[in-house]
């Protein structure tokens, strides 16, 4: 390989049948391969079981060693950003769910915060606490799924299901908040779809306790396992410099020793009022990403515990006529209320001219919503910064020179969510 090759190879330079011209030379040339045609191009994805969502990698392999590869995405492209320009601010909430569908609540919160910043609305305290619990729960869910699916790709299935059980329990709690499990659409601009039911905090605390136990069990099952260590330590290393070059954020960056966490560095919601640590590792390999995620789950559980203890009863809606969805009682009993309700949902509310960019620390890294408003109920431009896009670019260099199995492990560890990647 001349250099770390990131350019896609064009058809014609190589053909699997050996009919095409061969321009391919590599430094680590295999002396037995005198014609240079023992390489095979394999198409991994978009329907390959390890390519979560619909991703595609085309790899030129020597035996099973990936010598050259390129990645494609966009198979789940739904024009999210364009939809943001054609839907009212309120209507876009449901689209934000479908970004990173493993942690939909974080997307909801981030989007609501962005619009609220444009409007200059601030939400009451209880709303903030609930949003924090919801975000952290989504983070726990996302990390549980990520480490679990990563383990499934390496062959440890039971580990995944232990975590998955706690994930389902978390979804049951989320269901009590908003009636939905996966696509929550829980936040509203300036509030929440509904207040947490009575006694919800206690259920959350019980869930935190159980999840801690479950994590210890998962830890003892896999973390010290010799095969697991062999499969993950030193695999798909991505150094600090490379991470910076590829704009890594979130657990993947922290696993390579970059000490960033927006919750601590640029506190939003009330992250500055709770105590938590930001775990970082140094090697940037699959194992370190796994460790960082496992520790982050524990830290998130700490945050949830603190929030659940400090949550007090109170209003969840900002006292702002523009964004407040009229109460059903008013809608059903008064003409003005009915008209207000109709206008609210049919035409939406005006947002003053301006731009706002809000970033939050989502489960995979920095999730940002840039909204440009020229007045009116729809955004002039909506731009979403999803961390998966940046991470996915690194898959090809990361898996260079590794085996196909290493590529699968690498993909599982950087947790690419196709919904967020393709948007």
């Amino acid at each position, binding site marked *: 390989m001349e250099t770390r090759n990131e350019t896609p190879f064009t058809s014609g330079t190589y053909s699997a049948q050996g009919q095409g011209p061969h321009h391919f030379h590599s430094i680590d040339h295999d002396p037995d391969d005198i014609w240079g045609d023992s390489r*095979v191009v394999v198409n991994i994805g978009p329907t390959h079981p390890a390519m979560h969502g619909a991703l595609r990698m085309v790899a030129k392999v020597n035996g099973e060693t990936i010598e050259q590869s390129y990645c494609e995405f966009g198979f789940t492209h739904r024009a999210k950003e364009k939809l943001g320009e054609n839907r009212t601010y309120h209507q876009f909430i449901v689209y934000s769910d479908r970004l990173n569908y493993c942690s939909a609540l974080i997307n909801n919160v981030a989007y609501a915060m962005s619009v609220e910043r444009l409007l200059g609305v601030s939400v009451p305290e209880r709303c903030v606490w609930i949003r924090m619990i919801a975000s952290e729960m989504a983070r726990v869910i996302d990390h549980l799924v990520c480490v679990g699916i990563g383990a499934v790709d390496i062959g*440890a299935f039971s580990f995944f299901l232990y975590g998955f059980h706690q994930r389902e329990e978390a979804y049951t709690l989320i269901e009590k908040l908003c009636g939905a499990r996966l696509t929550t659409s829980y936040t509203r601009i300036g509030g929440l779809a509904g207040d947490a039911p009575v006694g919800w905090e206690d259920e959350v605390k019980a869930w935190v306790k159980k999840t801690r136990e479950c994590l210890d069990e998962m830890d003892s099952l896999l973390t010290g396992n010799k095969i697991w260590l062999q499969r993950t330590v030193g695999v798909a290393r991505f150094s600090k410099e490379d991470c910076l070059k590829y704009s890594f954020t979130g657990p993947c960056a922290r696993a390579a020793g970059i000490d960033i966490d927006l919750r601590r560095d640029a506190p939003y919601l009330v992250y500055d009022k709770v105590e938590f640590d930001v775990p970082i590792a140094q090697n940037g390999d699959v194992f370190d990403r796994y460790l960082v995620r496992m520790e982050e789950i524990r830290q998130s559980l700490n945050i949830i515990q603190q929030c659940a203890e400090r949550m007090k009863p109170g209003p969840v809606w900002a006292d702002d006529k523009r964004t407040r969805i009229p109460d059903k009682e008013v809608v059903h009993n008064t003409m003005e209320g009915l008209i207000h309700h109709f206008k609210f949902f049919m035409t939406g509310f005006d947002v003053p001219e301006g731009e706002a960019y809000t970033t939050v620390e989502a489960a995979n890294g920095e999730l940002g919503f840039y909204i440009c408003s020229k007045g009116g109920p729809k955004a002039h431009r909506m731009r979403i910064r999803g961390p998966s896009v940046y991470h996915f670019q690194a898959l090809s260099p990361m898996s260079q020179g590794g085996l196909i199995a290493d590529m699968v492990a690498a993909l599982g560890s950087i947790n690419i969510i196709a919904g967020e990647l393709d948007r």
Partner: protein
Amino acid sequence: MNEAVTTGFDTFDLVAMGLKIALIVVMLLQVVPIMVWVERRGSALLQNRLGPNRIGPFGLLQSLVDAIKMMFKEDRVTGHVNPFYFRLAPLVSLIPAFMTFAAIPFASHITLGDKTVEFQIADLNVGLLYILSITSLSVYGVIMGSWASNNKYAIFGGLRSAAQMISYELSMGLSIIGLVMIVGSLKLGDIAAAQGAALFHIGPLAIPKWGIFLQPIGFLIFITCTYAETNRLPFDLPEGESEIVAGYHLEYYSMMFGAFMMAEYINMTVASALTATLYFGGWQLFPGLDLVLASAANHGLQGLAFEWTRVALEAACFTLKTAFFMWLFVWVRWTIPRFRYDQLMNLGWKVLLPLSLANIFVTGYLIYLKVL
């Protein structure tokens, strides 16, 4: 049996042999749906799930329904495969799986009148060699299937399995040599019978001279190799679904896929039976059961009734031992992750092979010292 061979078969021998073959074949065929059920319910047990529980009591009939589904599925052969080898491959991997069990004894002999019936289809004097050679045939089915499939992922699976099975066969064969040296016979009947002697006594309880006590290292190497030979996790690289989709049986559906699956489970059964025979006394009774049998004899269980009770107990012990190792297959599969291909080769050639060679030398030295 040997006597019968010299005097020629008569009707009695033919009937006895026919019954034994029928028993083994039916048992092996039956073990597949049962093992599939154990695998599914067992994995559910390990993973806090329920598993299939709708059809029949405890979902026991689920495997039957699945088998019916598989048989009635369209037997399509896609255009890009080589149809002859594609159809042949499942048979080539299934038949050796059945053949292996012929040399494994599942109880000791019984004397009926002037005839002695061995509970084993053939007590070959090259028993172990026969088993090793027949199991090595099953790799042809995998390679043939992967090559005939004309699919890149299938070829990956075929190449992986060829390399894996051949490397691990070596260590597997060498790991048994120590045991063969101690017993002095390749006959599985002799090996099982030799493990009946007492190693030492705890009160009235005799701890038998099972292979595991004489060859602990050999046992570990052997059982590791059986996992590689049967393509089970942590060595399921030929099919490793997250890497090469389904490996060698990627292009197969309906009963042709079913045949590959059956071969896997029958191979598991044979491997478990072999482990039980070589290292856990085979049909030898569990320690203590001989005392029970002796007290039953004192209380009037005599003659043919006693003999049949003994045989039934022996067969039950053999089945239990085999069942344990089959459960171990399931247990291991759902507990630990998969090796990577190069790590698998390293383990086979750099760890297991030297270890099994060292085991032979140490065993030889101990035999020289008359310790074993």
